[in-house]
């Protein structure tokens, strides 16, 4: 249940995210018989048991260390075996809010992919909501089903292997929100319409990387009676903090003087000047600054949202 309830202490069988660096994390299932080896050293699982989550653990030979983190959907996104393209936190967050998800919501997702977004959805709709997720790739469907079981999410998530564009969802009139991450979402929109709980408002999001897909999606949403069709792009940009020295023109002149002194020294072989020349050197004031990375995510996907209207009695 570690995705749905926080724990304080690490126990046998827990899922721990071993954090070595920002780019290097590994999921571990704690098994007191096992040892985890990496380039920073040897870590015995049995040493983790009883420790508080978040503990910084030194390796057995003292060469390195790692942090023992509690699993969260965000960390799982980092460590999920990359079976497909995953969604990023900016998109995930915006979609969840826009679809008005909260404990108790009933959601439909297709395709499941690596199940990374399913974890975020399950987190938000727990404990009394439900996620129906559909994946047409059989191996992937099996793999995520196993993940959900291991992570205690089976009661919240129903996975089915199904080609929804051809065969529909097999559910009608029960969901509050729909999320479609499919190559041709417009093929699934008529079936999605039927999956909505018919007497209440609902929200749909289609996730497509190409603008041509967005245009066909919007046309289909319009034809199927969806309203408030809106499209967004959402990205997250990092600002790295560092300190830089701020030199002045006087520093620049000093620097030249020092260089000249050195030259003269070499010429004259006179060491008495040494003390005089070094007095120019001063520590410059430092400034905290931020810098955006040279390369950042420029596009993930377009998010097309629309509203499902409750069906009127005479319709």
């Amino acid at each position, binding site marked *: 249940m570690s995705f749905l309830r926080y724990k304080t202490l690490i126990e046998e069988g827990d899922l721990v995210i071993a954090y070595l660096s920002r780019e290097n994390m590994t999921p571990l299932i704690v098994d007191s018989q096992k040892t985890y080896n990496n380039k920073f050293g040897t870590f015995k699982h049995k040493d983790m048991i009883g420790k508080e989550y978040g503990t910084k653990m030194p390796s057995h030979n003292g060469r390195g260390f790692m942090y023992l983190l509690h699993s969260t959907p965000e960390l799982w996104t980092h460590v999920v075996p990359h079976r497909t393209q995953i969604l990023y936190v900016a998109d995930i967050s915006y979609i969840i809010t826009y679809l008005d998800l909260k404990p108790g919501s009933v959601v439909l997702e297709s395709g499941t992919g690596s199940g990374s977004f399913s974890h975020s959805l399950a987190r938000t709709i727990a404990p009394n909501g439900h996620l*129906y997720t559909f994946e047409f790739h059989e191996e992937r469907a099996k793999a995520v089903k196993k993940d959900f079981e291991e992570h205690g999410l089976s009661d919240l998530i129903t996975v089915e292997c199904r080609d929804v564009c051809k065969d529909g969802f097999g559910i009608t009139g029960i969901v509050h929100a729909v999320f479609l991450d499919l190559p041709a979402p417009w093929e699934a929109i008529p079936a999605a319409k039927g999956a909505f709980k018919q007497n209440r408002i609902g929200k749909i999001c289609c996730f497509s990387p190409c603008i041509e897909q967005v245009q066909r999606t919007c046309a289909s949403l319009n034809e199927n009676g969806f309203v408030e069709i809106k499209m967004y792009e*959402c990205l997250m940009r990092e600002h790295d903090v560092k300190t830089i020295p701020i030199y002045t023109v006087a520093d620049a002149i000093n620097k030249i003087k020092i260089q000249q002194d050195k030259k003269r020294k070499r010429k004259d072989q006179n060491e008495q000047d040494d003390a005089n020349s070094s007095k120019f050197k001063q520590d410059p004031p430092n400034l905290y600054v931020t810098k955006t990375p040279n390369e950042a995510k420029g596009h993930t996907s377009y998010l097309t949202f629309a509203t499902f209207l409750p069906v009127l009695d005479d319709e």
Partner: protein
Amino acid sequence: MSIETLVKCEENQVFEQDGSLILDNQYVFIQLPSGNIKVVKLQKDTNVSLGKFGTFHSNGIIGRPFGHSYEIYDRDQVKVIKNVAFYEVDETDANNKEILDDPSKQKLSYQEIEKLKKQGLEGQDIIKKMVESHSAFDQKTEYSKAKYIKRKEAKFSRVFTPVKPTLYSVWEYFFSKNPGKIRDMRIDTLSQILSLANVRAYTKMLVVDDTQGLVVTGVMERLGGYGIVLGIHDSENHNYDIVRYMNFSKKIHDSLMTLSWQQVFKEMQVPFNYQDESTLSEKDLKYYLRRKTDYERIRDTREILWKGEFDGLIVASQYQPESILESLMPYLSGSRPIIIYHINKEVLINACVHMRISKKFLNPQITESWLRQYQVLPGRTHPSMSTSGGGGYLLHATHVIINDSLPTPIPSYMKQKDTLEGADKSSEYHNNNAINETNEKINLEQNVISENYLMNNEELQEVDNKKARLD
């Protein structure tokens, strides 16, 4: 369980009222033809005035589901009108060549329009009349015809849409009305706070909210009544005005607890003077009981805070983040998130440096969200011409626990620093002097080191290499 049996379960399950119906005595946002939004607390058997767009009787919409638009007719009656996404606009041969900005093209005068209104002509009919009496309407391109009608609708239409209060719609209302009140926080940033803080049922969240309760509202909704949100507020009484617009159930309201900054600290406790209730007059008793309830609420909330083991700390406050961390970090469990929001990045830069110097924060980073809306229409798809310039910044990190009894590898330059300067590296994380110290001591060489200070193995190795190069 197969899909079919689950479907059956769902149908039999009685959901709590999930806010999808328009109900009496609840808040509702009303979108007007002009695009403006009006907030109304609906009361049955009353008239709701929408200013120049008319008045309607509340019973006309109470009990109906959210989603539809309504048109006012017969003075105060309403009927559902078909809500359409967009009309397909076909391009014709017409172009803008002959179009001149000439108000005389519209033959109907203001007085005549007012007269039509008095005769009881409804919104759509007036617009139709105006189109008919526009001498150059046919010369317009199809796009500008659609634009013209839309513009007239914003003025004369009597169609309104009751909007369900959701985190999004409530935010939209406050952001468009007075963004300063919610510290200019944009919804994408708020959404990221809720994700990064891992807010969900069965969590205990600590929130410092100076955004009129916007952040607290988001947290309460995601807890769904299963958990606690402890709001630390400015002033003596909290000002979480936004919470009420969500029409939360009692269960969700009960998950909110509040303390003022003064009440957070143990030494500020004022003991309550318990009295014998039978000796008090009726008037005094009422006052006494209110004071007693207040005292006990604060006492119990303080106990909950001091017990600690909170699952996340969210800060969206005007006060210095470092001072907030110093006050509240002791109450946070390990491997739990800390998220600090500010509209000014500079405030977060100092807090980020503070976090890096302390050993209790793993991977502090500053991020900024970027949001862009597009117009998607057949043949006319492009990003919006104007947009919000910024949605604020987030500083986020994970609380980690350093057990000093365990040997921790210390890089060579750190050992050297310790012996040279006698700096106490095992001191509390809230070493106020730490920042000043570094400010003073950092020189060109040490820059490289200080910013990577105790980050992680790989970076430390890299720093060692850099150091070697510098030497």
